């Protein structure tokens, strides 16, 4: 039985250890924040210039000068600090962020990631994604295992333009958790009653047990 989106987020949250500085991408990765264990002090960075991101504001308390990288209104915490975009990406590029969780269009078995551009379609831009995958210590991809058109997303080689080359450390999908080690995809955990054959069937990459 595949994991629900909520279960996927909960599983991803397990990667967030006490004391980690973490950047969560836009979309499903943002929801991972809801599953951080209460006893873990996980500090969220937002690449538009904030460390120590709090929850969304209570209605009526939103501040237009306080947004996250998804342009959502958020709140501060006692330990919050603000900084410029140059300092923020110095933090990211300099390897100070422990972990980032991002979405993907394709992940290749060598760790290549494509998540910003489909040729021929209007491109919105890579935002901070290329910097995050280049600089953050551990990159975790949280994605549906298969694209809406049925094509595999876990592939032997990315056909879409890359966001980063050999940058992905782990993939979490509704089928399980997969680690990318030495340019191979290894099953680390499977969703309940999911077999490795099912995963192989839904993947184009070679999946090692």
């Amino acid at each position: 039985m595949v994991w629900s989106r909520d279960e996927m987020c909960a599983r991803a949250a397990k990667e967030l250890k006490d004391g980690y500085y973490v950047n969560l991408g836009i979309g499903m990765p943002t929801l991972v924040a809801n599953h951080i264990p209460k006893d873990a002090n996980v500090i969220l960075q937002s690449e538009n210039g904030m460390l120590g991101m709090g929850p969304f504001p209570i209605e009526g308390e939103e501040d237009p000068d306080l947004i996250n990288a998804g342009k959502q209104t958020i709140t501060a915490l006692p330990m919050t600090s603000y900084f410029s975009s140059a300092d923020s990406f110095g933090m990211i590029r300099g390897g100070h962020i422990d972990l980032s969780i991002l979405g993907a269009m394709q992940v290749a078995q060598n760790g290549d990631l494509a998540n910003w551009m489909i040729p021929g379609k209007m491109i919105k831009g890579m935002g901070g994604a290329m910097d995050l995958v280049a600089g953050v210590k551990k990159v975790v991809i949280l994605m549906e295992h298969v694209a809406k058109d049925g094509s595999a997303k876990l592939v032997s080689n990315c056909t879409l333009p890359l966001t980063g080359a050999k940058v992905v450390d782990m993939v979490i999908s509704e089928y399980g958790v997969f680690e990318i080690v030495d340019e191979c995809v290894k099953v680390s955990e499977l969703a309940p009653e999911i077999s490795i054959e099912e995963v192989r069937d839904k993947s184009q990459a070679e999946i090692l047990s």
Partner: protein
Amino acid sequence: MNKIYSNSKEALEGVAFDGMVLMCGGFGLCGIPERMIDALKESKIKNITAISNNAGIDGEGLGLLLETKQISKMISSYVGENKIFAEQYLNGEIELEFNPQGTLAERIRAGGAGIPAFYTPTGAGTKIAEGKEARQFEGREYIMEKSLRADLSLIKAWKGDSEGNLIYKKTARNFNPLMATAGKITIAEVEHLVEPGKLDADQIHTSGIFVQRIIKGSHYNKRIENLTTRKAND
């Protein structure tokens, strides 16, 4: 040396011209120089190369200058959420250069700090690296990126004094302090204009040396793109 101008139109006089390179602060609609963008729209200056993380939205931010077709090229990291931009881009009316957000920030910072070029791991092995020098340092691949400067930087701060010292508020800081350093002329728009000495010298984010002109803005829209709230008892 008076740096204070009475309004955005006056502040723009003599420093904006057709074909200029413009830097415009802000992340999304957060921390954008609203009144200076109004003045630029009124000026009818055209053929602008705009360096800005985003392109505003329809009817707000740089979206206003897209409506009037004053921008011919954008250097940005993300231009989603803007129908006019998409239209003009697909029509070939506007040129677009995507930069990874951190590379954009660092190129601007380098421009202000006299660094002509630097190496970054960001984008190595991707389309972004095409046409750029790649080079290994300690076994890892990096690409060379060049600095950016502007004829005019328009930035937004929370408080400023008559010497041009500036303090930003929360995440409205973003690209503003870097762009302040990279403009041949920088015009700062502030919500509160105070006398020198009213800002704590240890807390000043942008030193007055980077600001040639300053105005007190007013009537801020500060539109929120993605209003997101939670219930009080969540």
